[in-house]
């Protein structure tokens, strides 16, 4: 097959419709970037879930002399009270393991977390002593989903100040991650529709602009593929550029935001890595291809039928 015509038509087509081509490319670019962001957020949410899930434990804070809750009316937790609590932890079926964190340990942790450059603040921090800390039991669960039973049983015991489970602490983080993820995917969905319609429109306009050539090609017996090829190539070029731009945006996001900013400064969760980035890139390349090829094939079939 002689492809001179196909390539010259490809060039002509892109030139003839620069503004349309740019509109298509920009729409594809933005929608795919959002799709990619949604995928990365999803991956991040899963990573966080796994990370916290494996560490998920409930913490049973015991009363100290300053505690004011109902179970702490008798002040500092006593030895027999602790025995009673430990007996429950030992026998409860939801508990995998537990350990006691002493006041001194809690104090060390606290000291390393609370450091300030501000002198006044620092002085306030330093006024707090190990005796102000609470003893606590760190309880590892067999199944992170099942914590209600042990939680309710322990929180009723004398000498227990509060029971905290990490899931509740993380709930708002998960919530906002989900909002962002679905927000990105939702907006991307609208843009994908816009991109499909735009590709379709572009094909229709291009077919109209070339109707003379197409009419002659049909009459002299050019094959469907030969007639459709310039249109397909035009769409593929747009898809390629759109995917490349979106891919670039995702790579930039991974590098500048995840690797340069978040990873070095915050270790509280496991962050997504390049493998997740590549996975998202693969998806947007596939979606970008489908996004342009499907409407192109449908439209060329409709308008360029031999």
């Amino acid at each position, binding site marked *: *097959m*002689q492809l001179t*015509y196909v390539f010259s038509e490809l060039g002509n087509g892109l030139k003839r419709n620069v503004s349309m081509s740019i509109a298509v490319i920009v729409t594809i670019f933005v929608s795919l970037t959002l799709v990619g962001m949604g995928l990365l957020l999803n991956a991040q949410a899963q990573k966080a879930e796994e990370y916290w899930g494996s560490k998920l434990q409930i913490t049973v804070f015991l009363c100290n002399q300053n505690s004011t809750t109902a179970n702490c009316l008798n002040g500092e937790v006593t030895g027999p009270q602790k025995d009673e609590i430990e007996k429950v932890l030992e026998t409860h079926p939801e508990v995998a393991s537990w350990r006691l964190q002493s006041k001194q340990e809690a104090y060390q942790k606290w000291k390393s977390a609370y450091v300030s450059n501000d002198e006044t603040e620092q002085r306030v921090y330093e006024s707090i002593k190990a005796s102000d800390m609470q003893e606590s039991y760190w309880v590892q669960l067999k199944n992170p989903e099942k914590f209600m039973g042990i939680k309710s049983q322990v929180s009723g015991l004398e000498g227990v100040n509060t029971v905290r489970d990490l899931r509740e602490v993380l709930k708002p983080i998960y919530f906002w991650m989900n909002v962002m993820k679905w927000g990105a995917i939702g907006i991307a969905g609208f843009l994908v529709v816009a991109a499909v319609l735009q590709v379709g429109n572009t094909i229709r306009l291009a077919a109209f602009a070339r109707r003379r050539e197409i009419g*002659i090609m049909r*009459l002299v*017996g050019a094959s469907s593929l030969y*007639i459709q090829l310039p249109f397909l190539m035009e769409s593929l070029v747009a898809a390629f550029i759109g995917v490349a731009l979106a891919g670039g945006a995702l790579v930039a996001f991974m590098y500048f935001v995840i690797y340069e900013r978040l990873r070095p400064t915050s270790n509280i969760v496991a962050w997504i890595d390049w493998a997740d980035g590549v996975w998202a890139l693969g998806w947007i390349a596939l979606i970008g291809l489908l996004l342009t090829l499907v409407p192109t094939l449908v439209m060329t079939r409709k308008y360029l039928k031999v």
Partner: protein
Amino acid sequence: MIRFENVTKTYAGQSRAALDDVSLEVEKGEFVFLVGASGSGKSTFLRLVLREARPTHGKVYVAGKEINRLAGWKVPGLRRQIGTVFQDFRLLPNKTVTENVAFALQVIGKPRSHINKVVPETLELVGLEGKGNRMPDELSGGEQQRVAIARAFVNRPMILIADEPTGNLDPNTSVGIMKLLDRINRTGTTVIMATHDAGIVDQMRKRVIELSGGHIVRDQSRGVYGYQH
């Protein structure tokens, strides 16, 4: 070469058939005039031969094949055996004469060496030697129609279909175009020409098929435009 067997064509949404139970045969190498008023079914006849349309009933054979049963991907192959010329020439205005004729070969994938050889030959055949580099708008109507004929004939089709080829031309120029079509016919190409031009039909004395309301009302081997009593 072309055979219609009880062909009826009714377009969607129309109650009256554009062609109604038409049967005829055109032999290889024949020159046939298709005459009749507007709406008599001439264009439908030509569209059926090109498989631009499919019959509602009946069978259309071209070169021994029943073309309404032809797979879609084989239609281009059929059309490569049929050259088509229109009243309005349908040249590409941004291409030269040579490029217009070469276009027909390029888009069916003919090698460049072949194109470089046959395009000048064909231009010479239609009397346009030396005008290959002109643009269509630099040519007279008759010359433009010659370019269109060159484009239709450059792939040496078995059948040449001409739909009112002289409709936009003055009588003198029309005579030249008819001579050209006659010459092409003498190379063995079957020519089917739809026309309103009584003078030409009377002069050429070829087979005349007259359509009226979708029926063949006359089929004369050496006919004239109007009825002879």
